[in-house]
């Protein structure tokens, strides 16, 4: 049964609709088999179907719908592994112990792998077998992408960013917008310096929605008298290739930033207030390009924390009353940036009330992993962000901070819907307002 591509009611981009069924399966198998290695094999073989990952997943907690069990999202990838490279692969094929993956099955999995998963890594924390379910999901997304089943919004943004460096067309080039923000906030915007120690990047979301955060970044760098520059050809930090699961596009998008960093011989590349951009650049870029990065990659909070530690940065104390800090899951669980934001807050005399006993176990905002961009996923996302609001309200905080632009937009978006009292504020802006001798 070879369904014509138009019958696919999945949420597909123009390029993806044209694919035939056999091409989709072949593409999925190509991506799945490329992801098979000792590590992914060990993980796929270890699952004992204990179902505990569902208890960590905010999509299951909010909906109690068993289809959102995290490890279930990896089923097509596991099927491919068992049939192609598992120890008893021939038997699995001859006796059909695992069916060949079909286009229909892949299509049904689009909702599971994209709409209902932020790849936040909370399921990986609870797994008693120590399986990094989130990474398996990331690898499974690549199968969907190669099968031409990545969600329309993510596919188009990834394709656009791969060609132009920014996910969407903008009324004016972002470099001009950047300079405009500079004048508006009366801060000097170093742009395209031929050489600089520090290369700055900016999240597209901040340029579009939160210009103050961009200005804050520039002001802090100026205060530290850092030899830094923006690069107009490597301005945007996000990586929609990572969201869409397009491994090769993710590499090309990262290469754009890497080339610019090499061009200006930067020693440090600053990733601004964004979650996935950090882990995509710091932990995955080197894998994708196949050689270590010749420069350091630091999240802006990390960079400031280092400056704080060696005394270059002094901060005045801030009176914020009961404060809560939301750890962006891509930053804390995937990126490993756990202590830097707290060091900055402590330096400003702020003791954040933790939402969970251990840092890094907090519930995800529900917008990450590209879910924010998928319209079809909005109702589901709202049910999840509601859970997050309960967690924050639980702390009784008056001020609520976070350090990721996508989280902020998700909270703002949810704020209107549930007219939630809190307003998410950026940690970087707070720091910029409390520079000592600034």
């Amino acid at each position, binding site marked *: 049964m070879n369904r014509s591509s138009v019958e696919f009611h999945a949420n597909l981009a123009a390029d993806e609709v044209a694919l035939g069924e056999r091409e989709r399966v072949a593409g999925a*198998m190509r991506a799945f088999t490329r992801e098979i290695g000792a590590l992914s094999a060990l993980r796929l073989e270890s699952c004992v179907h204990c179902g505990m990952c569902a208890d960590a997943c905010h999509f299951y907690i909010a909906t109690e719908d068993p289809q959102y069990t995290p490890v279930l999202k990896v089923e097509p990838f596991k099927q491919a592994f068992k049939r192609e490279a598992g*120890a008893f692969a*021939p038997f699995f094929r001859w006796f059909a112990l695992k069916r060949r993956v079909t286009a229909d099955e892949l299509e049904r999995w689009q909702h599971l792998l994209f709409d209902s998963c932020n790849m936040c890594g909370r399921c990986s924390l609870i797994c008693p077998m120590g399986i990094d379910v989130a990474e398996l999901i990331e690898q499974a997304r690549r199968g969907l992408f*190669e099968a031409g089943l990545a969600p329309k919004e993510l596919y188009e943004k990834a394709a656009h960013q791969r060609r132009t460096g920014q996910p969407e067309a903008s009324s004016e080039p972002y470099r001009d917008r950047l300079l405009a923000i500079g004048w508006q906030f009366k801060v000097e915007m170093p742009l395209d310096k031929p050489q600089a120690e520090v290369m700055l990047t900016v999240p597209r979301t901040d340029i579009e929605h939160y210009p103050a955060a961009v200005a804050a970044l520039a002001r802090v760098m100026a205060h530290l008298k850092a030899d830094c520059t923006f690069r107009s050809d490597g301005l945007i930090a996000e990586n929609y290739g990572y969201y869409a699961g397009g491994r090769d596009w993710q590499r090309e998008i990262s290469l754009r930033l890497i080339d610019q960093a090499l061009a200006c011989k930067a020693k440090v590349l600053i990733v601004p207030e964004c979650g996935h951009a950090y882990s995509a650049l710091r932990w995955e870029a080197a894998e994708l390009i196949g050689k270590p990065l010749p420069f350091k990659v630091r999240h802006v909070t990390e960079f400031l924390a280092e400056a704080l530690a060696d005394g270059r940065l002094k901060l005045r104390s801030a009176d914020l009353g009961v404060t809560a800090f939301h750890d962006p899951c891509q930053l804390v669980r995937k990126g490993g940036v756990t202590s830097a934001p707290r060091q900055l807050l402590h330096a400003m005399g702020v003791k954040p009330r933790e939402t969970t006993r251990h840092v890094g176990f907090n519930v995800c905002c529900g917008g990450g992993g590209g879910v924010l961009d998928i319209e079809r996923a909005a109702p589901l996302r709202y049910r999840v962000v509601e859970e997050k609001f309960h967690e924050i309200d639980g702390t009784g905080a008056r001020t609520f901070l976070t350090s990721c632009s996508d989280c902020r937009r998700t909270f703002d978006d949810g704020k209107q819907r549930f007219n939630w009292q809190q307003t998410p504020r950026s940690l970087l802006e707070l720091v910029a307002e409390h520079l000592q001798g600034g």
Partner: protein
Amino acid sequence: MARLELEPTIGELLDRQGVSRRSFFKYCTAMASLLALPPLAARAMAEQLLAARRPSVIYLSFQECTGCLESLTRSFAPTIENLIFNVVSLDYDDTLMAAAGAQAEQAREQAMRANYGKYLLVVDGAVPTGDGGVYHCAAGRTGLDILATCAKGAAAIVCVGTCASFGGLPSADPNPTDARAISTLVPGKPVVNVSGCPPIPEVIAGTLLQYVTSGRVPDLDEHLRPTVFFGNSIHDRCYRRPFYDQGKFAKTFDDAGARNGWCLYELGCKGPTTYNACATVKWNNAVSFPIQSGHPCLGCAEPDFWDHGSFYSPIPSPRWGKAGEVSPAQAGAIAAGAAVAGAAIGVGSVLLGRRRIARRQQEPKSQSDKGNEE
């Protein structure tokens, strides 16, 4: 005295010997206690016995060591002479009877003719069936032939000893004479197996007595053994069982545990897998039984007990083929060999897997190239 000499009933026989009714009644009470029958059954048994005619018994011996017969002669209750003269009429037993040669055979044929269809055939020893049964010949006839003729007219056959019941020692591996259990050679005949090597004297006598008093084959277990004697395992009736449950085991034959009379499970006791009455009826008129004298039970009442490995290797210890108990070195070698084989297959399967992964990569143009066509 003109009346035809009828076969006297047991009652008349006893009376002729001056045995009073009371002493015969006491004897039946003892028998009921031994056979674990309800005490008041003694009265019914006495009346039946008094009225019963003594059944004619033919005792055939084949491949055996006469241990069973020796054991029968040491029966205390009922004593052998009591049994032979009062309870059964032992018409043929080539070991016990005075006659020999042609007269003995003639006596047997005459008894069989006289009681055709009613006499009790007691068999001792396995019958070799190899090469036409030539490995056992008596009076010019093979054991197989003798058994067949005698079994035809028997009302029932009592196989005494593990040899007759299950083949015992003669049929132990390699069983050169292809010795067989009697029950396999007399299809259609009711058979009672009184297994043991030898069986307990009182168990043989008790089974014969029970047949005489009730006139039928007693309740049997799946090995055709009387459940009254073989219903429970030695382990279930063993007086050392509390030590087994408390985990107190003798580790060697003269350690503190052995001296304190602890359980002999770790010294190879086959009590749990053996069904017999040793632990209750005991031996030598209830003086003792193997475990009580400090030796593990060999399981002699069970089929093929010769081939269950060393009498001193515990029940759970694995036994791989004739080599007997597995040794760590042997287990290690097999494990290592298997591991190497596994590794080899593993390498094979992973190479196969890698080849398939590579082949999957050359599939048609990848999706990501499409993006360039703008």
